[in-house]
């Protein structure tokens, strides 16, 4: 590169070292086991975004059947009813449980959709070197890592109901096929967010150097 700027001198990568993401140890060799914790030390590279996109796409694809197919089948004396995630939210609204309806809607629809958008936005901006305030991107990344796991709520609601409501012919609840797809989608998007290395947000791109973080 040959270009020495104050910003370029300050990262571990520029000094020729790699930080272990698991234990924070500085190492001098990439793609080897960390001498302290044993995790593989990976150098900072945009190639890692391939994994982010692969998990992202699989997560989006699994999210579709997760929402279209029923997640819960209720058998009672009055017959069999199948309900989807959105159907469950609407039923709760009809019963006047607005708070619970909001929890399910946010966890099952709001959070996953927001995650898909934020991960795609971060990955695209890293790939194309869009100049966006890195602090904003960093906060967005931390937020999706923190709230992403909460999308599992609806899966556990179905599991709890299916386990509890088993009273012979009187009434029983079984999970629908949609719940497997939905759980898969949550797991895949968690992997996608975890594979996105936050350090890439701060890495200067070749065609533009972020200066907002220079003191």
């Amino acid at each position, binding site marked *: 590169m040959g270009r020495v700027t104050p910003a370029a001198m300050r*990262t571990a990568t520029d000094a020729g070292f790699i*930080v272990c993401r698991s234990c924070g140890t500085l190492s001098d060799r990439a793609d080897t086991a960390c*001498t302290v914790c044993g995790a593989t030390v990976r150098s900072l590279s945009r190639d890692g975004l391939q994994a982010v996109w692969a998990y992202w796409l699989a997560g989006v694809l699994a999210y579709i059947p997760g929402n279209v197919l029923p997640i819960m089948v209720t058998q009672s004396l009055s017959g069999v009813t199948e309900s989807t995630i959105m159907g469950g939210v609407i039923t709760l609204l009809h019963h006047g449980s607005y708070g619970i309806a909001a929890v399910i809607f946010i966890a099952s629809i709001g959070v996953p959709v927001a995650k898909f958008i934020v991960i795609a936005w971060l990955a695209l901006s890293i790939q194309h070197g869009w100049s966006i305030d890195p602090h904003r991107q960093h906060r967005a990344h931390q937020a999706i890592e923190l709230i992403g796991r909460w999308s599992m709520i609806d899966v556990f*609601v179905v599991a709890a109901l299916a386990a*509890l*409501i088993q009273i012979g012919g009187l009434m029983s609840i079984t999970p629908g096929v949609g719940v497997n797809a939905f*759980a898969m989608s949550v797991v895949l998007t968690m992997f996608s967010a975890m594979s996105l290395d936050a*350090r890439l947000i*701060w*890495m200067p791109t070749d065609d533009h150097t972020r200066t907002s973080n220079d003191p």
Partner: protein
Amino acid sequence: MTERSEKLRALNERYVACRSCDALWLRPTLEAGQRARCPRCHDVVVTNKTRGIERTTALMLASLFVYVVAIAFPFMRMERAGLSNEISVIDAVAVLWQNGMAVLAVVTALLILLFPVTRVVMILLLHAALNRNFGYRRQQAVLLRVGQTVEPWAMADIFMIGVIVSLVKVGSLARIEVGPAFWAMSALIVFMAMGSSATCRDTVWDALRRQL
């Protein structure tokens, strides 16, 4: 001791890099209870929590105790038209399995039973070993690494919110009572959260790095 590991140890004593943005800093000296933030991305770079080892040991021990209660005692009981059904958390998973919902049964068992207990046991063993200044640093490093890897996958907290939602959903259909395991599970998520925030990972990694 090889020349390379001596060099790396000296390097790590002198510098610390931000895990979030890769910025390289001179390692700060922290007093007990202090933490240093990265001037570039504002994330916490190093912490030095007060009595981290003792507090983590106590809270993880408490977690393990309530975990045993949570799986051994009845969790919930429902009653409708004279028929009743009482389940423990393990029954809940078994019922799913027996009714042909193998995938959901395995996912639930991993997320609410296996991963939480893995995290608690790993972190407890590690801190008990640190407390007594036990050897086996290499094994301790593995304990901490596994313990922090399973952290986002230990979903006992999310499960409890799911259970509360399901209670609201069927509250009108059947009479539901919660058992001792319900309260134990609630205590578990509180102790685990407190234990996680008491743990000073950086101090432990630094200590292991010096002694390996």
